[in-house]
């Protein structure tokens, strides 16, 4: 037992050092970097190690960083709803619900079964719900509607910021706490001038983690704002208007879903722009036709 423990600590020490290979200067001594030349030598030594690694990357496996899936892809390279597959949802872990003892009876239509004590969510029902939500987002965006993405966990922050950014001037985000009363007490929060002159009530709110934001969902219901939300197996799907039954604890699932919805929103904005252009063109041609007729 003692020998085993000793071996484990030795392996741990080796691994700890292996994880940080570029810790020392070229000559192996860890002396302080006093002059500019010391810093340059330090950088050059590290760069040499990197070039060596890059050189040998050309041999061996044909899989590289560029042609394999990377963890940042769901955030920076989202898929459109028409290209979304069940395999993508499965790979993101969207089918993993909570423990079966926590299963909400109203969630049963969306549950596939139980495995290893947890509820497995039926992805055959998730996909059409997600696509319906996407077409809703597209329609709202095409009619100049404001869309708010709500994701109040720290790991959901970049997802929510990027999704709102993708939609443009019609997209908004809440990456921190939703302050209670934002919609029901809007005059206090935003002031009377802003409430009268700006569209304070959004046209659609998307919740990536609805459980900590039940106050927000209730406010949206009071103010008659349609809501989309990722509902897990311990949640009643009727709290939001358009539920997407999926795993709400997985960052990858939230990134996938937010990506799909934001791409649909962007398409809606483009549709609106095209429609405006067409209307402008037809108005111009009508005006020309009228002037010709007068002549």
């Amino acid at each position: 037992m003692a020998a085993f423990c000793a071996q484990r600590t030795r392996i741990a020490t080796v691994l700890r050092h292996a994880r940080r290979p570029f810790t020392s200067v070229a000559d192996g001594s860890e002396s302080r970097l006093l002059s500019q030349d010391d810093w340059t030598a330090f950088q050059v030594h590290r760069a040499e190690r990197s070039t060596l690694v890059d050189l040998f990357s050309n041999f061996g496996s044909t899989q590289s960083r560029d042609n394999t899936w990377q963890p940042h892809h769901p955030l920076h390279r989202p898929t459109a709803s028409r290209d979304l597959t069940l395999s993508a949802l499965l790979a993101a872990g969207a089918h993993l619900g909570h423990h079966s003892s926590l299963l909400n009876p109203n969630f049963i239509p969306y549950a596939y079964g139980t495995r290893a004590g947890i509820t497995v969510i039926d992805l055959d029902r998730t996909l059409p719900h997600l696509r319906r939500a996407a077409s809703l987002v597209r329609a709202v965006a095409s009619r100049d509607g404001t869309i708010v993405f709500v994701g109040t966990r720290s790991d959901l922050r970049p997802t929510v910021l990027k999704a709102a950014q993708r939609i443009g001037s019609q997209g908004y985000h809440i990456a921190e706490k939703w302050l209670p009363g934002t919609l029901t007490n809007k005059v206090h929060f935003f002031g009377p001038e802003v409430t009268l002159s700006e569209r304070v009530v959004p046209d659609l709110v998307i919740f990536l983690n609805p459980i900590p934001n039940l106050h927000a969902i209730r406010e949206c219901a009071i103010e008659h704002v349609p809501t989309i939300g990722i509902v897990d197996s311990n949640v009643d799907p009727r709290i939001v208007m358009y539920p997407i039954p999926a795993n709400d604890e997985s960052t990858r699932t939230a990134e996938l879903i937010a990506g799909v919805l934001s791409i649909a929103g962007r398409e809606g904005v483009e549709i609106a722009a095209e429609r405006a252009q067409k209307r402008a063109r037809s108005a111009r041609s009508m005006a020309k036709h009228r002037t010709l007729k007068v002549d």
Partner: protein
Amino acid sequence: MFAIRRPLRLKFAINSSRTFATASTPYVPPASLEIVADAPPPQFRSRKKTKPESPSFYTSRASYYDHLYQLETALQRCRRAISTLELLPLPAFARASLPPAQLLWRNRQSMMTMFSGSLTTARYRRMISVLADLEECSRIASAAGHTALAESIQPVLELFERQDKETVLARTVRKQVPMDRYGRSYTVGKRKESAARVWMIPVREPAPVTLSSDVLPSHSPRAQDVDILAPVVDNAFAPSPSASRMPVTTTTILVNNIPLNKYFDSPADRERIVRPLKLAGVLGTFNAFVIVRGGGTTGQAGAIAHGIAQGIVAHVPEVDHILRKAKLIKRDPRMVERKKTGLAKARKRYTWVKR
């Protein structure tokens, strides 16, 4: 009679009448067949109302969060740039070589004016931590010689720095005590009601004394005959062979033109005065001339010690941290506490009487 029995329908058998999302001919409900996109926008929307400008509008602290997220993006970009220059992750020895950070950000009230609305301490601290990380990136870049990158980060940081940063930094720089034309330092030390004016001058190094052979007794043993364990004391008053190698300098401390041992009878006071010289290891290096006024023996001794410590630092700046740790540089702020009404002395109470 018993026709072919239908096989038992097992509970977990796959329902063959399920429809799957990925079927070849997808089912589209009739309501979705309408082309929704071409429908005209609803009439009730007031066209006069504009959309809110900031994407963080619904956080109710739009200005703060916009600034924060922009700073975090800037930090991400800086870190990526520094990583390509092989400067991140920075190992411990390289991090120790960086110059120390001089962080002087605006206080919470000042930053509140930058953002509309109140700024809680938690939000202020979060902003400060992001700014500190950005400042670290700038410091790493400038230490490694990439001044362009460091200078591009500086304007962003300057927005959040104190207006009077230079004056605050100048305050931390210690005033240099000037030497006069003879190399004497002049410092003032104080303790209780006493004030001491101290002039210190380094002693000139004496020539090494070499003893001639006729001074030594003739019967003194030669080096090879010496048995180191045997005690050899021929003449207690003869100078030791090592005297030539270590000349001892004598220094003078004059207090009000009187030698130290005559002015201060108590050995404690003398020790107090000589302590800074001992700690700095400069016991035989300086002559001191002191004029002290006010107070009593202890106060005057303390004032002289304070003045001598400052004088040592003026001549030998390297020992500053030693004397600072020993609390000899700081003027002892303890003064005689005043007597209060209703009390016999500053703290002494009159005897409590029950009735």
